[in-house]
């Protein structure tokens, strides 16, 4: 009985080990939502393997930060060829490790709200940070930071911690872009609207927002697209803030020590083709990095179109981040 | 032939020490008498190898045995109590005396049942020690000791606290062992034990 059971287990995991020896292997470090079965990962793998005569392998780490952490620990001996899933907040830190190579790819196909000419990182999707709200609990959400700050205290929001989460840091940069030096004071005013400051977006979304604990959560402007297209519900919508929104760009890069640089570069090229990008809108729930034309799902027409767009260059983020986080901590613990 | 030669022992941090010196021939029984704390159990533990002597020698048939581990000595002990493994049934308790891994021949299994029958414990093989009376437990311990067929039996107050019927039965078993040539060292403060079993006795 036990024997049979272990055979079953073995059979379940065999596909893991089944590598054919003669094909080159491209190792990609990425995060869970990309590599998930319903994420873009599997479709991308299939499409890329069809044209590259190679094997595409994902190693799934918990977040962009963990990818970097792993890369630093492994140093030049890292088996990674490509890292996919960093963002504008971690780019500069990644660059400073000295482990990221120049991509030398054409960025012609890119279609972003900002100009992009980075020599190391190539965007593969983007979106805006935004507050998503539950239309049933909150029919008339505040339409600006000002209104949010001045709304009655029983309106609660869920945010993420800038010390541990990408959207959390995004909100910090967003407030900074809107208010500049006055941001800490505004944080202090916002403080009693905040129900919880969670470690990650997932904790807040799953444990709190979807449990109905608060009607608003810091998320992405593209989140409603998933609820509308897949869950078939219009209940959750993003609110457009009059002050404008902060841009989030997710990027991939070549690892300098890779022994498969040619293959890695062809993967980066592939990343900016429709075969890759068509998986982004509904599987990663972000805007594609290139113009998909009519292939962009219709629900994306119903998303908010923020104006103006804020974006701080990664180098500036790296420089300011620590101070901003400390100011935030001061304001919130005062 | 057991020779205990100037065997000295002192517990750490205690002023008092002991020196033992005697011989014992096969088929004989020496009874050791004395109040509690007088060193009876200490002597038995020294012979069995549970304690290490400070000096002196223990010889069996002329060969020193004081450096052997307890399991390599030609002795079997029966204590006043705690002789049995409480979590194992009677038959297993005895069987472990015949082979420490309980790998028994069918003959040995038969001898266990015979031993139990002979002591009036027929059918008790599957009982747990906790369900037996004190006399029954001592009988099981003695059956195991006898079946081990070691030439030297060390008995530490084996009959104390038992009813007279049990005492009679156990004494009969011990006498039979003696007649087969087994040497007995008996620590006891019971007059009757001494009279009925011992060939010689000394006071500690």
């Amino acid at each position: 009985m036990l024997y049979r059971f272990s055979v079953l287990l073995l059979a379940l995991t065999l596909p893991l080990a089944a590598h054919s020896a003669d094909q080159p292997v491209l190792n990609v470090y990425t995060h869970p939502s990309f590599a998930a079965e319903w994420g873009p990962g599997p479709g991308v793998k299939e499409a890329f393997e069809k044209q590259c005569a190679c094997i595409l392998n994902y190693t799934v780490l918990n977040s962009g930060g963990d990818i970097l952490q792993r890369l630093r620990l492994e140093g030049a001996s890292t088996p990674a060829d490509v890292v996919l899933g960093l963002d504008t907040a971690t780019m500069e830190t990644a660059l400073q490790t000295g482990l990221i190579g120049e991509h030398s790819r054409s960025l012609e196909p890119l279609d972003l709200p900002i100009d992009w000419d980075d020599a190391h990182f190539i965007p593969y999707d983007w979106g805006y940070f935004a507050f998503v709200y539950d239309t049933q609990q909150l029919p008339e959400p505040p339409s600006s930071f000002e209104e949010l700050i001045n709304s009655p205290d029983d309106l609660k929001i869920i945010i993420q911690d800038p010390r541990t989460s990408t959207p959390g840091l995004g909100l910090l940069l967003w407030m900074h872009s809107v208010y500049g030096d006055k941001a800490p004071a505004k944080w202090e005013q916002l403080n009693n609207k905040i129900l919880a400051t969670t470690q990650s977006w997932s904790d807040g979304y799953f444990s709190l927002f979807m449990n109905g604990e608060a009607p608003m959560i810091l998320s992405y402007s593209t989140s409603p697209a998933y609820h509308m297209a897949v869950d078939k519900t219009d209940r959750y919508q993003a609110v457009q803030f009059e002050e404008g929104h902060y841009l989030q760009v997710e990027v991939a890069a070549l690892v300098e020590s890779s022994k498969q640089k040619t293959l890695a570069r062809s993967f980066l090229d592939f990343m900016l083709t429709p075969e890759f990008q068509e998986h982004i809108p509904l599987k990663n729930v972000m805007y594609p990095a290139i113009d998909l034309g009519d292939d962009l799902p219709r629900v994306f027409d119903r998303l908010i179109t923020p104006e103006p767009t804020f974006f701080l260059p990664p180098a500036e983020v790296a420089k300011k981040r620590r101070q901003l986080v400390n100011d935030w901590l001061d304001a919130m613990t005062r | 032939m057991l020779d205990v030669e100037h065997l000295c022992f002192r517990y750490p941090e205690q002023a008092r020490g002991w020196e033992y010196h005697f011989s014992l021939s096969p088929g004989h029984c020496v009874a050791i008498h004395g109040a509690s704390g007088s060193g009876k159990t200490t002597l038995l533990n020294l012979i069995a190898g549970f304690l290490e002597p400070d000096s002196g020698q223990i010889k069996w048939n002329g060969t020193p045995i004081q450096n052997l581990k307890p399991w390599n000595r030609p002795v079997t002990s029966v204590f006043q109590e705690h002789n049995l493994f409480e979590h194992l049934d009677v038959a297993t308790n005895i069987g472990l005396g015949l082979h420490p891994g309980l790998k028994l021949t069918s003959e040995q299994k038969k001898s266990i049942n015979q031993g139990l029958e002979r002591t009036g414990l027929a059918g008790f093989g599957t009982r747990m020690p906790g369900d037996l009376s004190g006399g029954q437990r001592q009988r099981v311990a003695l059956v195991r000791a006898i079946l081990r067929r070691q030439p030297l039996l060390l008995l530490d107050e084996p009959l104390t606290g038992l009813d007279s019927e049990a005492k009679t039965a156990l004494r009969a078993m011990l006498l039979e062992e003696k007649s087969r040539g087994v040497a007995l060292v008996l620590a006891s403060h019971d007059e009757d034990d001494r009279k009925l079993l011992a060939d010689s006795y000394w006071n500690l």
Partner: protein
Amino acid sequence: MRSTPTKAPLSHPGWQLIPGQLLGLALLILVALGLGSMLITAGGLDLSTVLNSRYLRGVVWFTVWQATLSVLLSLALALPIARALARYRCFPGRSALLRVMELSLVLPTIVAVSGIIGVYGRQGWATGLWNEWFPGNGWNLYGLNGILLAHVFFNAPLAARVMLQSLEAVPPSRLRIASQLGLRGWWLWRSVEWPALRPVLPGLSALVFTLCFTSFAIIMTLGGGPKATTLEVAIYQALRFEFDFPQAAVLAVIQLLICGSLWWLVFRQRLQSSLLPNRQLSHGIPLKPWPIQSVLAGFLLLIFSLFLLLPLLAISLRGLPALLAMDTGTSIYEQLLPATGRSLLIALPAGFGAVAASLLILASANKTKHPILKAIPTTTGYLPLIVPPIVLGTGLFLLLRPGLGNHAQGWVLVALINSLMALPFVIQVLRAPLTSVDSHTLRVADQLGILGWYRWRRIYWPLLRRPMALGLAYGIALSMGDFGVIALFGSPGQPTLPVLLYQQLGSYQVSAAAGTGLWLLMLLVGIFGVLSAIGRPPAHQQKNGSPQSLLEPKHA
């Protein structure tokens, strides 16, 4: 005269001493490497950065404060529960309640927290009732309230379980005397209960303190904001975006110092020896009750059961729709079942490994009297709890690199770390039974030559099978529900159950994630149920005169 007795396999004393020493040394090297490399990168240890920062001083203070409160509350709740369970030994649902109490410790945090929020959150059931009965009571889960509530939810059952075992191990003779004298209240406590509990309380408090001290996800989800920040969060923060190794190293050292000195105190008192005492059931001996004591005890146990069960019910209700849904194109089980297989593939070896390692470690610590040789294996029982996982991870990478390339190695590594993390719990479960074999028994066994393998098979195994089954359940369950380690080391594309849950959470699949959470909960219940059934002693040890031949007792 019989010739030399049969030599027992594995009876050389080295077999007891050396493996445990090696395991202990390996862990110490790992921690030293991890910490050392962080310190080298940091270029030294500068504690003044912490002392000079208002924020970091606050973090240290808050960490200690919330952990202390959590210990006090958990023990205060656990004590009456344990006393009630010890006094009333047969009522319907008692053993089910005990199983649930074992379970709460191993529930994955995110699943449990979602259940707690479902009951006590702003929209929770309990909150709803509470507000109806006491309008304007101002209950708010988020903040210190929520942290303490969750910590009590996780730790009070563990504490009660340990206390109960101590109370059940009171010698029947002492209980008979207490019964005859009609002792109750203070004098019952003084003469029976306190002496039984006193030896386990320091170790138990230290364990709960450590668990709450290093708490992370609970603090962040329920803490309400950066006012509630623990050292573990600050360490993660220092590494997550900043890669500030000096800061992380300093904070990790502070954590090691605080928790380490606590354990050292416990050691010095020599009071840690039996966290889970051996279970020798003294059959229910009636003690003189207060007039309405049974009513009160029943009420207390009912409240406690509800406290534990309601969040589980909330998890079930939330997850059920996804598990029952048949219409959603691809069935959720297409992902759940393979993920379950992979999880078991990691968790089973991790569980067995943890039990085996615990036995070797305990054997080694028991074998020697030399203080250092004793300390080396003993540290493995505590270090995994107080060393931040990121430090362990760093140490491991340095130890093993290069060559963490292929997936099979990664899985072995994850199983290895998981069993390491389970060690403290498994050791706690096994220590007392292993050391409880008395000197008389060992003496008889010595004389009969029952050594090495034979001694293990005949003396220890029958006594340990039950604690081992419980230890195994802890080992498997902790590994089964672990997000941290697998997230730290990365996993192949095919997810294990926790990774699957994480993927679903990260991709808006909220209802599927709830289903996965419930599935995980059911698996954990199953694991504990099966193993507690296997661990039960064979029927003949409970009933007399069963007909089977017992020369060769049957062992499952």
